[in-house]
């Protein structure tokens, strides 16, 4: 009898532990209520990258010290934002998944994944992170697989081929879990893919719905393409957001293909360079807003939609904030997609204003065979790295690339599966080739002058669209931003510094040289009452805590 009772008690205890460990849909929905954890790519569904942890303050941030380092066995850049669930960190090294003790950095398990050799990808063998639901992690791979992994053991549960890696489809996003579905979309616009956003059942991997970012014949928006729709791009590069009130999930869609020549795709090229609002249960389009119709400058809409509840002209507003690669900071109504405001975030010469939200092009700002000088350049005035919004300050923080340009020239190119398909040439007015604001100009000595481009943190007031303060760096930055409830802002850049600013003033409070460019979004978590701040530099993850 005693033995039976003990067994029953043990069974209940084990079951209880399992239930506690589950990351339910409700937990993700209410992630802001457990700031000790980081349950989804952008922290919460609002994607503000704002933490309510308060142990690290402007007064003691100078006492941060390195607690541990995870050196990924991977030579490409580390762009993933880790997840932390109840003291366990889940992150990646390349396309491997790693579970670590969040206090010590010691490894529990590694799920190794080697992408198929025939896979093609334009912009690095990058993954930006994981999603979790229940005890299942979700990994999107650069050869376009979506894999469910047991969070306790690192063993695969299912492996879904989302698209053809050999044809240039790749998955670089951290997936987004909404209720019982995991949502992803492929990158690969530079290879003439035809993009989509798709949801898969978390338990089985079966596709639940698909939204074509380049509409097929018969679908709304198809008539905005001409014949170019077949290889029209429309990539998904970064994770979307979710609004439970409207059950809408929001995703940014990449550039149309070929990147630099619209002759084969006359029209607006919906839904490239747009944000789309989809019903999370069905994938049906509720609304869209296109930032750059008929883009020929590779500007994408490659940002995380930041959802905010603000006062707008004296009235409460469910808004979306978006600093776009095309050089503008947008305020949209996230229930309807209504355009509320757009203001420049950096030097630009293509836009003469807006007509009911539609950009008005300046004269002579269309690409041509001879080339046209456009600000910002093809990497934009900002890029994929996440901004942050602090409800305390009411400010939207984004890393900006100022003074970038390219000379865009159309060229002829026939599509060939699996090969780069951009149909254009880029050049600059800079002396030499090392100053161009490109993705590859990283980890070299910086010899640039300020007028040639620089990176800067800018703190925008959504009410005015203007920045209140900025913190300039001599080099560019690919770092995301984290803000906290103690009005700290953490970010970094290509110079290798990880630093903390006063989120109200932009004053530098602390910095640490990490020896390589910061490329992910800093995040923070807490275990046993101690707050940690994690950030990557080059291919390693650095975790800090107070002395």
């Amino acid at each position, binding site marked *: 009898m005693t033995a039976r009772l003990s067994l029953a008690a043990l069974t209940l205890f084990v079951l209880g532990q399992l239930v506690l460990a589950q990351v339910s849909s409700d937990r993700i929905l209410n992630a802001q209520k457990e700031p000790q954890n980081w349950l989804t790519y952008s922290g919460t569904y609002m994607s503000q990258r704002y933490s309510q942890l308060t142990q690290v303050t402007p007064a003691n941030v100078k006492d941060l010290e390195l607690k541990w380092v995870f050196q990924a066995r991977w030579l490409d850049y580390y762009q993933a934002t880790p997840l932390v669930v109840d003291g366990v960190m889940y992150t990646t090294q390349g396309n491997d998944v790693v579970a670590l003790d969040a206090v010590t950095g010691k490894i529990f398990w590694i799920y190794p994944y080697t992408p198929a050799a025939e896979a093609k990808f334009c912009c690095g063998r990058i993954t930006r992170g994981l999603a979790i639901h229940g005890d299942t992690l979700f990994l999107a791979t650069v050869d376009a697989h979506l894999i469910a992994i047991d969070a306790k053991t690192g063993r695969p549960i299912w492996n879904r081929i989302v698209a053809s890696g050999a044809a240039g489809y790749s998955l670089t996003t951290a997936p987004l879990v909404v209720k019982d579905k995991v949502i992803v979309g492929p990158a690969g616009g530079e290879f003439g893919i035809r993009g989509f956003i798709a949801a898969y059942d978390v338990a089985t991997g079966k596709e639940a719905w698909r939204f074509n970012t380049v509409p097929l014949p018969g679908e709304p928006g198809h008539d905005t393409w001409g014949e170019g729709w077949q290889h029209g791009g429309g990539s998904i590069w970064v994770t979307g957001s979710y609004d439970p009130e409207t059950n809408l999930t929001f995703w940014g869609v990449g550039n149309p293909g070929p990147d630099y020549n619209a002759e084969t795709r006359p029209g607006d090229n919906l839904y490239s360079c747009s944000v789309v609002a989809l019903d999370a249960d069905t994938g049906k389009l509720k609304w869209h807003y296109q930032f750059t119709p008929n883009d020929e400058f590779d500007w994408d809409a490659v940002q995380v939609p930041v959802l905010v509840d603000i006062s707008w002209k004296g009235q409460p507003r469910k808004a979306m904030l978006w600093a776009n690669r095309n050089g503008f900071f947008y305020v949209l109504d996230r229930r309807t997609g209504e355009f509320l405001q757009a203001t420049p975030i950096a030097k630009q010469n293509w836009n003469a204003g807006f007509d009911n939200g539609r950009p008005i092009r300046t004269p002579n700002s269309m690409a041509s065979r001879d080339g046209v000088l456009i600000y910002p350049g093809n990497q934009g005035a900002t890029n994929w790295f996440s901004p942050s919004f602090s409800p305390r300050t009411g400010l939207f923080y984004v890393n900006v690339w100022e003074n970038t340009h390219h000379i865009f020239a159309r060229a002829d190119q026939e599509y060939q599966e699996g090969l780069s398909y951009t149909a254009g040439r880029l050049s600059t007015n800079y*002396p030499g080739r090392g100053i161009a604001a490109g993705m590859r100009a990283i980890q070299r000595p*910086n010899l640039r002058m*300020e007028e040639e481009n620089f990176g800067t943190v800018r703190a925008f007031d959504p009410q005015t669209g203007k920045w209140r303060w900025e913190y300039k760096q001599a080099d560019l930055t690919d770092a995301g931003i984290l803000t906290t409830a103690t009005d700290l802002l953490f970010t970094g850049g290509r*110079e*290798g510094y990880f630093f903390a600013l006063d989120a109200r003033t932009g004053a530098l409070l602390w910095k640490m040289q990490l020896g390589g460019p910061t490329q992910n979004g800093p995040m923070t978590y807490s275990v046993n009452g101690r707050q940690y701040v994690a950030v990557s530099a080059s291919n390693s993850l650095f975790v800090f805590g107070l002395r």
Partner: protein
Amino acid sequence: MRILGLVLSAAILTSAAAAGQTSLAPLPPGNETAGSAIVAGSGKCLTCHRIKTTGSRFGPDLTDIGANRTPAQLQTSLEDPNAEILPENRTFRVVTRDGTTIVGRLMNHDTFVVLMRDAKDQLRTFQKSELREQGFVTESPMPSFRSTLSPQELADVIAYLGTLKGIVAE
């Protein structure tokens, strides 16, 4: 940062298009041997430039200049040193709090520090917050040779520089 301007310390151009910015008079055929003598002698080129192990490190190293620049680019640079400068040839000037001025080659800089090779070939780091002034130098240290060398001498120098292809494995 206060920007003081551009320098073309070796008058190295980046492209044929850039070379076309300056009107070039046609030159006679050059003599490499005569050019070598001018570079090492009357032209005083090695006062600032270096070829293999000879000369100064102040200006750009010319050891492989013939592999990287066309004759037209070299002529433009010799006649109009301020036409254009490559970032790696930029000269930087700092003034420390005690008033000491240091001019040298910019090696790297970031938000907080500037790294230079000074006129004594010392690799030095300066905290920007501790500098009274800092910025790029306005004028090229290299004079124009348009009037100080004859067309034949210019052609000779260009012919010689064209033979400098770098360190070749033996």
